[in-house]
């Protein structure tokens, strides 16, 4: 895709600098107007009457919880009235969702929610766009600090999003849906999926059986997905006496089969270290081992052994230590990176599909699996205007504001006090992120 850099810089100083409250007020108005439009298309919330709703607002930093709505109209008119910044509902279903005492709500079950989000992943791009900034002296730290290294002042974390973050999240969602959920007996049609509005995706499973599971029981599923406590006792070991590695076969079930299938997939997809590194450089497999594995003879031999379902894997040059590293690597690539506490919590609040994310102004967009595969997170959930005619003037208030792509235009990076004029969607993104103040309302 052709990407353009844009945004008009305002050279002359404008006198319309507004205070923070004004920016908030303006955002709030924009959201309200947008909700008035969105209600017509608002997605259906399953079992709405049994869910607890919660809201965060623009001007208060506490949450209003324990709200209940018997029907969608009721919720939608409330959204128009109260203008929330963030809207959540419980993954759990209750007899009396509005009851303020948790134990009296009457828990009836809880969706199994998987949150896949760049927030909990370690991605190289984060070094380039997530910062720890001193609230006193503006000093920018790239590493996590709890107080300013220069003046000991308090720190705020400024997190950003980029294509890489969202690609990484998408990759994990596909892994979850394609590779793990079928083991549990779920197909692509059994899942309810949405873009989170920020750095990831939510997958909801609402099957009757899964709803009744306790936290401990959910942990079984979560461990399965994340590869936790995988404990191959009599396989994935090297037998020095026989000179082979006891592997697994592609027909095996569960993790056993997953290891063989992933190994085969990797070997068939990559025939050079370069191509291998493009996908797997973060796993730090020794170059020496990669060379041996990808050497044409060895590679063919392994592919052959895997294809004919021979569970004994042999490569002359590989001994115990190397096989151990290959085993670790295969386990690592097979794991799915999900936000564990979300899935095991049976009272979790989760962002409402169809609402607007208060930190980006992006739509929390429901998707089916195929939508998701082709989903463009910097275009498809953009609901505010990207037209030049709808430009707004802003002043950047953070020492470092990374670039952001909206549709196919890249805006930024910007410096503190820089005054810019950008389309509504970009202005709302930057102000929601808290890195800019509004100078003028735009149209």
């Amino acid at each position, binding site marked *: 895709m052709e990407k353009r850099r844009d945004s008009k810089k305002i050279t002359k100083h404008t006198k319309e600098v507004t205070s923070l409250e004004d920016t908030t007020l303006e955002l709030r108005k924009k959201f309200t107007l947008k909700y008035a439009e969105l209600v017509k298309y608002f997605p259906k919330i399953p079992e709405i009457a049994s869910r607890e709703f919660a809201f965060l607002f623009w001007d208060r930093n506490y949450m209003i919880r324990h709200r209940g709505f018997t029907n969608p109209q009721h919720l939608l008119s409330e959204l128009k009235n109260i203008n929330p910044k963030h809207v959540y509902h419980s993954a759990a279903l209750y007899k009396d969702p509005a009851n303020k005492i948790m134990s009296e709500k009457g828990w009836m079950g809880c969706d199994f929610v998987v949150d896949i989000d760049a927030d909990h992943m370690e991605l190289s791009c984060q070094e380039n766009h997530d910062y720890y900034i001193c609230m006193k002296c503006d000093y920018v730290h790239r590493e996590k600090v709890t107080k300013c290294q220069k003046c000991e002042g308090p720190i705020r974390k400024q997190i950003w999003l980029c294509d890489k973050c969202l690609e990484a999240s998408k990759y994990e969602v596909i892994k979850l849906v394609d590779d793990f959920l079928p083991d549990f007996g779920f197909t692509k049609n059994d899942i309810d999926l949405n873009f989170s509005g920020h750095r990831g995706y939510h997958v909801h499973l609402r099957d009757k059986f899964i709803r009744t*599971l*306790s936290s401990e029981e959910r942990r*079984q*599923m979560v461990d*399965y997905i994340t590869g936790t406590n995988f*404990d191959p*006792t009599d396989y994935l070991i090297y037998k020095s006496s026989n000179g082979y590695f006891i592997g697994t076969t592609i027909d095996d079930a569960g993790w056993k089969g997953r290891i063989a299938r992933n190994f085969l997939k990797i070997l068939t997809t990559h025939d050079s270290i370069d191509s291998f590194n493009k996908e797997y450089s973060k796993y730090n497999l020794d170059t020496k081992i990669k060379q041996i594995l990808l050497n044409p003879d060895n590679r063919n031999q392994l592919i052959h052994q895997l294809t004919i379902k021979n569970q004994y894997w042999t490569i002359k040059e590989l001994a115990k230590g190397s096989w151990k590293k290959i085993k670790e690597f295969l386990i690592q690539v097979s794991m799915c990176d999900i936000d564990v506490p979300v899935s095991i919590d049976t009272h979790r609040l989760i962002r409402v599909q169809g609402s607007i994310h208060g930190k980006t102004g992006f739509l929390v967009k429901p998707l089916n699996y195929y939508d998701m595969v082709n989903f463009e997170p910097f275009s498809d959930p953009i609901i505010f205007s990207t037209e030049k005619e709808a430009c707004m003037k802003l002043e950047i208030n953070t020492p470092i504001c990374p670039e952001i792509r909206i549709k196919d235009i890249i805006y930024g990076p910007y410096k503190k006090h820089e005054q810019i004029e950008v389309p509504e969607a970009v202005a709302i993104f930057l102000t929601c992120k808290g890195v800019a103040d509004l100078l003028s309302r735009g149209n």
Partner: protein
Amino acid sequence: MSYYNAYGLVYKYPWLEGGREMFDPIVESESAEPLVDYYNRLFSDYFSIYPELYQKLLDVFIFALDKKESGIVLTDDKLNIILFYTVKTLLTAFDNRILDNHVANLLSKLYHKRLLQENPQDLVIISKKMGLPCHFDRKGKDFGGVIHHFWVEIHQYVPIAALLRDSNYQLINRMVQNGKVFLIKDHMARLLQEVARREIIPDHQGISGELLTLLKKINPISAIINEIAIIIEEKKYSQSPYEKTNVYENMVYVLYPPCIKFILNKATNGVNLTHSERLHIAFFYANTNHTVEETVDVFRTLPDFDEKIARYNIEFSRGIGGKGKKYSVYSCAKLKSIKLCKATDKEYGDPICAEGVYRKGHGDTKVPIKNPKDFVFWKNVEIQRKLQNIPKK
């Protein structure tokens, strides 16, 4: 008479439907006879029809508390039903979780053996009746050369796996495919053993006091209660095999690090240990002058205890008998990474673990300990200092 009774299954597995009523037909009795009289009559009948009942009952408790493998033979007649429910009633009355676990572990192991002998079709019927329905497939599925003839639906499997905690039975280590968990007969029997274990443990509902008073008024039962009470009392004094030892520079309980105390407590309560927990105990004991016997004793209370396997593993961890090497204790870093560290645990935590210790050459900053043996060393220092009233630094 129900379908299952016709098969006689309830005599073999008394918790199945109809068993309770066969033991205690009070619901059908229409007389307004006082409870004490009713039970007195019931039990004197039972004890006179089955003279061996008395000794059998006693044996269950003695063997359970001695953590002995076996010596009890289960029958498959009404005596088995009476034995089962009388044991359960006594457990309710004693209201002692440790006793519950010991007895349940012993009996469930006996039922495990029994389940292993069932033919596949009967196992399917029993499993359904026990609420963990399995399916049998004559052809089976071949995974790694092992034919798996049984399968359980994943939603039935997950709850029992969560209870078992045994690493081998965690969902991730099983053959899972299309919402099914494939198993061999041994596994199936082991899962049902856990269900049986839970059937034996009563759900204590605060009625123990009343019940105990009532039972004490019933002749043969009161004698049994007294004998069991004496055994429990005796056991209390000789309970912890790990409290009395004087090895590793006099290893008293306080010297055990939090991570070990936590596991010991689990084991004492008959809760199954994970693979890593077992290894941690075995390596720690091997490196702190504990004998193989003492180590075996820790595992004796576990539901899946098998003396031969336990002994083999422990000896293996010490490099006995083979060319194997002796393993060193896990480091705190390793234990932290596998979430076994209990440094800040409310019950077991200790500042030595949580904050570290003052060491020569490190000035005023505390240095973290590196492995659980360090804990023993520093805890001992702390105690000696306290005894001699030396300030900490």
